[in-house]
């Protein structure tokens, strides 16, 4: 009995030890990845040079134990290898110290680094069926024409046959009028032309001064798909003045350089294409930006300002082509709509985060403005939770009317949103 107990005890302890070991091993591996991502990944990549050097192969570069000293206080290390490192990565500055990392944590991180393999990128199949819809409409057009021609020929044949049969019976018929002198055909043609001409004339007249779908070529191919879509940069990061002023400001070059100081190559997943299908080299477009900014991408600094005009030599503003243009006699204020009206940019500008090249989405016609003002509800000041727009507190009457069920809602029109002077003055 005692022998069994001994065996049982021994095996139990052994099992416990094994479980503990395997568990701790597992948690180390997971920790390594998490620690690397939270502490190191901002500057280091396992397999590539980044802000700091690639970490793989670290073991061969320095004797064991060096890395612990380096991580704890990189500034204090003065051996030749550390000095060489500091000189080579001068542009990035000295690495942040991580004295809080313990030895086993550093081991876990380095283990993760050694085992890291870059994820395999799978390229999607090329989409070659894009143009199908266009082909279909052309086909239908041709078919319609062919059928119209057949109908016309059949009509002619019919009238000829009728004439022959009539002659056989003995009924005399005058020589048939050729179709281009036939009054019915002529009349139909004239009416058709009149309708067509009227349609185009009126359409063109309405379109005068409206620039819907206007999509000019810009000095730099700037893709909103890449910036606002894939990279999720807020519209207000660049167009911040939209919430403060009349204009949704076009960012000055320094705003672009906030990110592009570090991003010199386009490596995103989106394919850059112009409207006519020509491919765009994203990296070349970023180089154009560097020209405008007066930035030297190799030295990674702005060029010197030798002529003392306050900007790096050769730097100049980018002349973007203005797309949205309201007539001079219309006043439009972005901040009123964004900050007070709480409208989304997309309400007027369409799905801007999916536009490679920006085009004017809305007509910006008066009817289009008025229509939205008729439908949009006003967000009145709410005393209970102090939200909403205080400006219209004099309209508390409306508020009370709603409370007393005399009204169900108040449109912009009711508070003067369609007065001429709101826009024309």
């Amino acid at each position, binding site marked *: 009995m005692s022998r069994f107990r001994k065996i049982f005890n021994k095996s139990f302890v052994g099992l416990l030890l094994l479980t503990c070991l395997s568990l701790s091993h597992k948690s180390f591996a997971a920790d390594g990845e998490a620690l690397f991502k939270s502490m190191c990944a901002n500057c280091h990549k396992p397999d590539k040079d980044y802000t700091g050097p690639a970490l793989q192969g670290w073991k061969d570069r320095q004797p064991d134990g060096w890395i612990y000293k380096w991580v704890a206080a990189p500034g204090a290390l003065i051996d030749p290898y550390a000095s060489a490192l500091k000189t080579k990565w001068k542009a990035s500055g000295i690495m942040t110290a991580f004295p809080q990392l313990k030895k086993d944590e550093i081991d876990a991180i380095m283990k993760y680094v050694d085992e890291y393999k870059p994820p395999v990128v799978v390229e999607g199949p090329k989409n070659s069926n894009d143009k199908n819809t266009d082909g279909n409409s052309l086909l239908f057009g041709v078919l319609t024409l062919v059928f119209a021609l057949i109908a016309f020929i059949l009509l002619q044949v019919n009238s000829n046959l009728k004439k022959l049969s009539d002659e056989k019976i003995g009924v005399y018929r005058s020589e048939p009028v050729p179709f281009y002198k036939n009054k019915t055909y002529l009349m139909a043609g004239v009416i058709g032309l009149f309708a067509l001409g009227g349609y185009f004339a009126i359409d063109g007249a309405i379109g005068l001064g409206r620039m819907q779908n206007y999509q000019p070529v810009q000095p730099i191919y700037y893709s909103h798909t890449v910036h606002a879509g894939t990279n999720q940069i807020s519209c207000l*990061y660049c167009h911040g003045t939209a919430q403060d002023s009349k204009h949704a400001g076009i960012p000055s070059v320094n705003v672009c350089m906030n990110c592009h100081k570090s991003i010199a190559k386009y490596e995103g997943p989106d394919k850059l294409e112009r409207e006519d299908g020509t491919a765009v080299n994203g990296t070349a477009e970023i180089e154009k930006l560097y020209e405008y900014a007066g930035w030297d991408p190799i030295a990674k600094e702005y060029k010197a300002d030798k002529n003392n005009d306050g900007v790096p030599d050769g730097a100049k503003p980018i002349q973007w082509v203005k797309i949205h243009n309201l007539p001079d006699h219309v006043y439009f204020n972005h901040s009123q709509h964004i900050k007070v009206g709480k409208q989304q940019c997309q309400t007027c500008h369409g799905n801007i985060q999916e536009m490679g090249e920006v085009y004017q989405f809305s007509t910006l016609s008066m009817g289009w403005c008025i229509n939205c003002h008729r439908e949009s509800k006003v967000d009145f000041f709410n005393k209970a939770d102090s939200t909403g727009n205080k400006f219209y507190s004099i309209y508390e009457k409306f508020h009370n009317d709603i409370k007393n069920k005399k009204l169900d809602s108040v449109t912009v029109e009711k508070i003067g949103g369609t007065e001429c002077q709101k826009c024309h003055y």
Partner: protein
Amino acid sequence: MNKIINIGLTLLAVITVSSCSNKQKPGKIYMPDMTYSRAYETYSLLDTTNFSINREDAENRRNAFFNASPVKGTVKRGELFLIEDTNDSIGYANSSKHVNPVTTFTKDELAEAGRLYNINCGVCHGEKGGGNGPIAGKIGAVANLNLPLYVSMTDGTMFHSLTYGKNNMGSYASQLDRKQRWMVINYVRTLQPKASPAKADSASVAKTK
């Protein structure tokens, strides 16, 4: 003969009208002087003969009204006063002594600061300050604001970094005014873990940059 000419002319007119829809051209307008402002207007083209200083200037960089930096030494209405620190290591070292003037803030103001943070900072530093925003991986060396180093960093030094930029980060002086920058710093403090005195000490020793 006349008839044929008439028909031909009509057809020609129809074709011309229907074919002039080029997306890259802005199109025609009724009265240009009612559409394009004769007065100063942001981003509109300068009337070179009237406004520009000299011809070469007009051709090179000033054919339109671009956003300009404020005149040196001026303070915008309602704006906090300028802190006279230089954009170099001396100014950076000096900056820690500046005290955050925005000390009391309401719930609404903090929410506004959070909104500004998410627009301007969150894209790199992450919604929670962890340095893991959507484009942090492309910029590189994005600070994890929750590290002890940044918990113990003074408001003044953060303000210096926001104003002049630091390492990979650019200046945010054009996007956030001075009060907004202090507000954002207050918001970052709410994201950070509370600093324990011991930790703060070790971090300030480890501050090497």
